[in-house]
C-alpha cells in the first residue's frame, strides 16, 4: 500500500501557486501515471482517465485542487524592495518576518516580509498591516532585484513539510494536496477492480483564485457525477466549534443546496456500512469549493463534496491527520464501487 504520509510531505514541499502549478503538476503526473493516461489541460489542470468503459455508463469525476495560495510580485521599488499581492487568500496576520521563496524563472529567490522595528511601534496600538501595505526584502538593490525577479512572479511562505506527534502532517499547500493524496489512496484501493463506470481524476488548477481550472476541465470531461475533495476547518480553541469538524474523526461529508442530496446521503450510508468514521459539514449556500463550479457545468452534474479536516488553513502550518486522508480515500473508493452497482442496466 502507498506511503500516505510521505506523499503528503512530498506534495507539501513542491511549489504550485494558483496559475503557475507546474512543479506540483509534475509530481501529481508522476503519482497518477500508474492508474491511467495522464495529460495536462491548457488551463494547467492535470487529468487522468482511470477507467473507460461503456459510454452509456455513469462517468464519475473525482476532483481535488493542486494549486496553493501564495503571493504575486506587483512592483519593484526604487530601493529594491518588492510590493506584492495575495494570489489567493493570504492571511495578513502571519506575514511579518515570514521568510518567502519566490518561484522565479532563474530558480528560487529567497526573501522575507519586512517587520516593523520596535522603535517605530512603541506606544502605538499594533495592527496587522494589509498585504499591499507590506514589503518583501530580497536583499537586493533595484538593479539586482530586476535581474532576479519579474512582476507576476509568484512566491510562497517558506515552510518545511514536517510531521507532528501522532499521525499529523504539517506544512503549506496541504489545502488541497491532502485531497489529491486521498484520491491517490482511493485509486490504489481500486487498482485490482474491473472498471464499473467511467472514471476520471482531475487535479485542478486555480481553485484559490476562483475555480477556473475545475470549471474548464469539467466542461471538457463532461461527467455525469462528481465528487470534489477539499479540506475544511478542524477545530482549534480559537475557532467556533459549530463551524468546524475535528481532526482525526474522519472525512466531512458536505451538505449544501448546490450539492446532490442523494450523493451526500449515500456517502454517509456508505461510511456507516464500511465502518469508516465520518463527520458532516452543512453549508447554507454554496460550498466555496470546486463543487460549486462542477455542479453547474454544462447542463448540470450531480456533485458531492468530501472534506478532510484541517487545522490552520491558509497558513504554512496546514495540519491534517494521515488517518483522515486514508479514510477519505476509503470513502471515495466505496462510492466509486457503489456507482458501478447502481449503473447496472444503463
Amino acid at each position: 500500500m502507498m506511503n500516505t504520509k510521505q506523499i503528503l510531505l512530498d506534495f507539501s514541499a513542491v511549489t504550485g501557486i494558483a496559475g503557475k502549478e507546474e512543479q506540483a503538476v509534475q509530481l501529481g503526473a508522476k503519482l497518477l501515471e500508474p492508474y491511467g493516461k495522464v495529460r495536462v489541460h491548457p488551463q494547467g489542470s492535470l487529468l487522468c482517465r482511470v477507467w473507460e468503459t461503456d459510454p452509456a455508463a455513469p462517468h464519475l469525476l473525482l476532483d481535488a485542487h493542486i494549486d496553493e495560495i501564495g503571493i504575486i510580485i506587483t512592483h519593484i521599488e526604487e530601493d529594491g524592495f518588492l510590493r506584492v499581492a495575495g494570489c489567493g487568500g493570504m492571511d495578513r496576520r502571519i506575514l511579518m518576518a515570514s521568510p518567502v521563496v519566490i518561484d522565479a524563472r532563474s530558480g528560487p529567490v529567497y526573501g522575507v516580509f519586512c517587520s516593523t522595528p520596535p522603535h517605530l511601534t512603541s506606544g502605538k496600538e499594533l495592527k496587522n498591516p494589509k498585504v499591499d501595505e507590506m514589503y518583501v526584502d530580497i536583499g537586493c538593490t533595484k538593479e539586482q532585484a530586476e535581474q532576479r525577479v519579474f512582476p507576476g512572479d509568484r512566491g510562497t511562505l517558506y515552510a518545511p513539510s514536517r510531521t507532528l506527534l501522532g499521525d499529523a502532517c504539517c506544512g503549506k499547500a496541504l489545502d488541497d494536496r491532502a485531497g489529491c493524496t486521498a484520491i491517490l489512496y482511493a485509486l490504489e484501493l481500486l487498482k485490482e477492480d474491473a472498471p464499473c463506470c467511467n472514471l476520471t481524476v482531475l487535479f485542478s488548477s486555480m481553485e484559490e483564485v476562483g475555480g477556473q481550472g475545475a470549471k474548464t476541465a469539467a466542461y471538457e470531461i463532461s461527467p455525469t457525477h462528481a465528487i470534489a475533495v477539499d479540506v475544511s476547518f478542524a477545530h482549534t480553541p480559537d475557532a467556533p466549534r459549530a463551524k468546524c469538524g475535528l481532526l482525526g474523526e474522519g472525512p466531512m461529508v458536505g451538505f449544501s443546496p448546490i450539492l446532490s442530496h442523494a450523493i451526500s446521503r449515500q456517502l454517509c450510508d456508505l461510511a456507516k456500512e464500511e465502518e469508516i468514521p465520518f463527520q458532516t459539514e452543512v453549508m447554507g449556500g454554496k460550498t466555496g469549493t470546486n463543487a460549486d463550479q462542477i455542479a453547474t457545468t454544462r447542463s448540470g452534474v450531480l456533485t458531492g463534496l468530501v472534506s478532510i479536516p484541517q487545522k490552520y488553513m491558509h497558513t504554512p502550518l496546514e495540519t491534517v491527520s494521515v488517518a483522515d486522508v486514508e479514510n477519505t480515500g476509503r470513502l471515495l473508493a466505496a462510492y466509486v464501487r457503489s456507482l458501478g452497482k447502481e449503473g447496472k442496466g444503463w
Partner: protein
Amino acid sequence: MVSLIDLIRELCDIPGVSGWEDPVREKIASLVQEHCEELHTDTLGNLIAFKKGAQRPKNKLLFSAHMDEVGFIITHIEEDGLLRFTSVGGIDTRVVVGKSVEIGPQRLYGAVGSKALHLHTDKEREEVPDRDKLFIDIGARSREEALEHVQPGDRAIFYAPFLPLGENCILGRAFDDRAGCALLVKLLQSDLPFDCHFAFTVQEETGCTGAVAAGYAVAPDIAIAVETTTASDIAGVSADKVVSRLGKGPVVSFMDGGTVYDSQLYRLAFDVAQREQIPCQTKSMVAGGNESRSLQTAKAGSRVMAVSLPCRYLHSPSNVLHKQDVEDTYRLLHALIRELGND
C-alpha cells in the same frame, strides 16, 4: 579555517534561549579552548576567556557578546495537549502568529497555529491577537501525551531556515547575538597584539544579567560590547528613523536606551576606522540597549563602547545581516585592540 559566515551559521544552528545557553557555551568552549590561556564557566553560566597577546595592554580590555537569544518558554499544558507559552525577551506578537517553533533540546516541532482566515471577523483580521490566547500545537491529543515530550519551563526557539538573501546578505535566526559571539571566537582564534579578556554572557535578553557577574569578575578598564543593532533601512521608513544601514559597516553608539557611552572611545572608534579605511557608522537614534549598561557599573566602573552589526528584523525568526559588515566589524575590532592597548 572556517569563514566568519560559516561560523555564524554554525552557532545560530544551536538553540540558546535566555537561561538555557548551555549548548551554545559548550560549542563556543570547544572552538576556543586551544586558543586561550584561561577559560572557565562562572556561576551564572557565562563563559570567560583570557588570551595572551604579543604585549600587555595599558588598559585591561574586555570584549563581550551574549550567547542567549529571544524565544519562548512553555508555561502550561492544556487538557487537549496544546501548549501555552510566553515570550523570553521582547518579541512582537505579530512575528509569532503562524510561525513554527522547536521545543526543548530534542527540538520537537510545533506550530503556533491560528484559525483559518475564513473564520475571522473583520476586526480579528486587523487586530493583533492577545499573546495569552496563542498556543503551540505539537500534535499531542492529550496532556498525558504532551507530557511525554514537553515539560513546563522548556524553552522554544523559532523554527527558521538559514538562507542566502541576494548577493550580499544572509537570512536566519539568532544573529542577535551569535554573530557577536562568532566575531569574538574569531578574535580568540587569531594572534592578538595585546592580552584580552572575553566574556560570552547569559541572559542579556532578559535584563543584561550575565554581564553584571562577568563585569564584576573581570573588572576591565575598557569594556566593548559586540552586538547587533537595529537596521531599519527598509522601504517606507523615513531617513530619521533608519537607525543604521546594512552594508555601511560597524555601528558605534554614542548613546542608546540603556547607556551613555564613553565619548572619547566613541570618537576614537571613528578615527581608527578612518585611518584603517574601514566603513563605520553611528547609531542615529537613541533606542534599544545592550549589556554595556551592566559592564559600565561593574565594581568601580568601566569605560564602555558598543560595536554592533547592523541587522534587520531583530527578535524575529528572520534576521538579515550584510556579509561585508561582518568582515568590516572584525577588522575594526582588531584595529581597536591595537589602539586601545597602547592608549
